[in-house]
């Protein structure tokens, strides 16, 4: 798929995220919007999967560790035919498959989440399983930067290195904001690339909203190299909506109806 088409899909995903969260009057738009371009690139250009056979054995695994950003995942899955787009507006409603945090009962969701810090370890388990079965599928885990406060991540980082999980790719959505405040105020992670490198990982840095660069970095990965990989994607929380961008208030708050109209108009004009 060409770059303009992916950009168009990113916009659709953003509009879906806004509609889903506003319709639910809750949810996490900020960290969903920051991940939108990453998921657009992954689901349209990188991952191997069959949306009509979500449990296909050889599929690449995409694990959303920052599970509060599930609107971005649901949007990507719906756009790819895992379930009907009309289901998106059931997000967070009674009897819906689209839970407030992702659950494996939803087609295409690989891991039940909702408590940060578990996804990378889960991904290590999946990647170990691939090696054991001599399967070629790859495991991608999307982490938040705030999420890296959780010590379990660093246990998983050491384990992936120990077991030479070259088939494992961590992606950090480095949007710089967590629940209360900016990440550098809550718990400064810098210098983040050096931290990963010192744990023995191969580290890539990329603009997380530059579709072309994202494609290039994913395609440049050498999976024959047994070193686990991390892509640190610099992103903007709330990307695409002026009043949400870099605004901690929209980590866990949906736009009201007036704000929603403005937000969608802004995205359509981009």
């Amino acid at each position, binding site marked *: 798929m060409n770059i303009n088409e992916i950009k168009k899909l990113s916009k659709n995903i953003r509009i879906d995220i806004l509609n889903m969260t506003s319709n639910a009057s809750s949810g996490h738009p900020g960290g969903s919007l920051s991940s939108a371009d990453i998921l657009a690139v992954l689901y349209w250009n990188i991952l191997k999967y069959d949306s009509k056979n979500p449990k296909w054995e050889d599929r690449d695994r995409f694990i959303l560790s920052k599970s509060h950003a599930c609107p971005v995942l649901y949007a990507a899955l719906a756009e790819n035919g895992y379930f009907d787009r009309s289901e998106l507006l059931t997000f967070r409603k009674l009897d819906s498959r689209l839970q407030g945090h992702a*659950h494996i009962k939803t087609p295409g969701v690989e891991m*039940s989440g909702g*408590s940060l810090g578990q*996804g990378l*370890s*889960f991904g290590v*388990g*999946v990647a170990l399983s691939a090696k054991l079965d001599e399967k070629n599928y790859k495991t991608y885990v999307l982490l938040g930067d705030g999420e890296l406060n959780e010590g379990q991540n660093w*246990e998983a980082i050491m*384990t992936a290195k120990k077991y030479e999980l070259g088939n494992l790719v961590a992606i950090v959505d480095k949007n710089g904001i967590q629940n209360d405040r900016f990440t550098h105020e809550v718990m400064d992670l810098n210098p983040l690339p050096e931290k990963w490198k010192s744990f023995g990982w191969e580290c890539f840095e990329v603009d997380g909203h530059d579709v072309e660069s994202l494609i290039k970095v994913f395609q440049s990965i050498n999976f024959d190299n047994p070193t686990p990989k991390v892509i640190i994607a610099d992103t903007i929380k709330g990307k695409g909506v002026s009043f949400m961008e870099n605004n901690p208030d929209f980590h866990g708050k949906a736009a009201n109806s007036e704000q929603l109209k403005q937000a969608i108009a802004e995205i359509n004009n981009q």
Partner: protein
Amino acid sequence: METGSTREYAGKKILELGATVPNLCVVGADLNKSTFTNLFAEKYPDRFFDVGIAEQNMVSIAAGLASSGKIPIVSTFAVFGSTRPMDQLRVGVSQPNLNVKVILTHAGLITGEDGISAQSLEDISLFLSLHSFSVLVPSDAYEAQSAVEIAVNTDGPFYIRLSRPAIPILNKEDIKLKHGGSSIMVEGSDISILACGYMVHQAIEASKILKEKHGISARVVNMYSLRPIDTEMILNCASNSQFILTAEEHFKYGGLHSLVSQVVSQNNPIKVYSVSMENYAESGTPEELVKKYGLNFQSIVEKVLANFN
């Protein structure tokens, strides 16, 4: 009396199952010599993962393995494998109902000399609070082997509670437990003692004294399966006993006493007394500790005599 440690026999069974269950894996956390999963590790190094002293990581890795079709056993001490990764067990294993087998050793007071930090008295309650988990508490080494077999061959998350020291062997080698079952160890008509784990042989000993010295006929039931629990057996005991006494090497809350009381109170209310832990203990030998803290046959006899009419 012949004795055996449940952890050692379970470790041997895990090794044995490695041959016939090709997707069986073990994830350990640097206590593999103590849990006897080193036996599996030596024979099947490709299917054994030591994640170091990192229990949260251990549990989430097992969840990832299970989601990919493996049958992972996680193995460490009960104190480290329950409280520490409780969030990972809850969100990562129980809620998605993944096929992870949590087999923890060194549970209970009889862990002994290492003191209160090492004496797991909460684990049964914690695992019962995880809705999807089956919970098995074998009473001897052969039951431990059967419990491992049930867990590996039954889909869904399991917790198996094992002990450190060797304890009396009560069953034949070919004992087969039933998921959701129980077994009558001693027939009796006056009262029923429902026990699990280490307390089963103490209850059998107590029943002998009650019979010989006090003329009280005490039925002893081995409640090795706490979830699912054998409701029929409990109700049968409630209908045919003056009272029920539960005996567990665990705090009173959230364990066998709570389960039995729930069943009895809703169906056939009779008195349900408890022999269990009422406070944190201290360092000591298992024998010293069970005597001082009221977890041996004498405590059971005393509790029965104090309440028998």
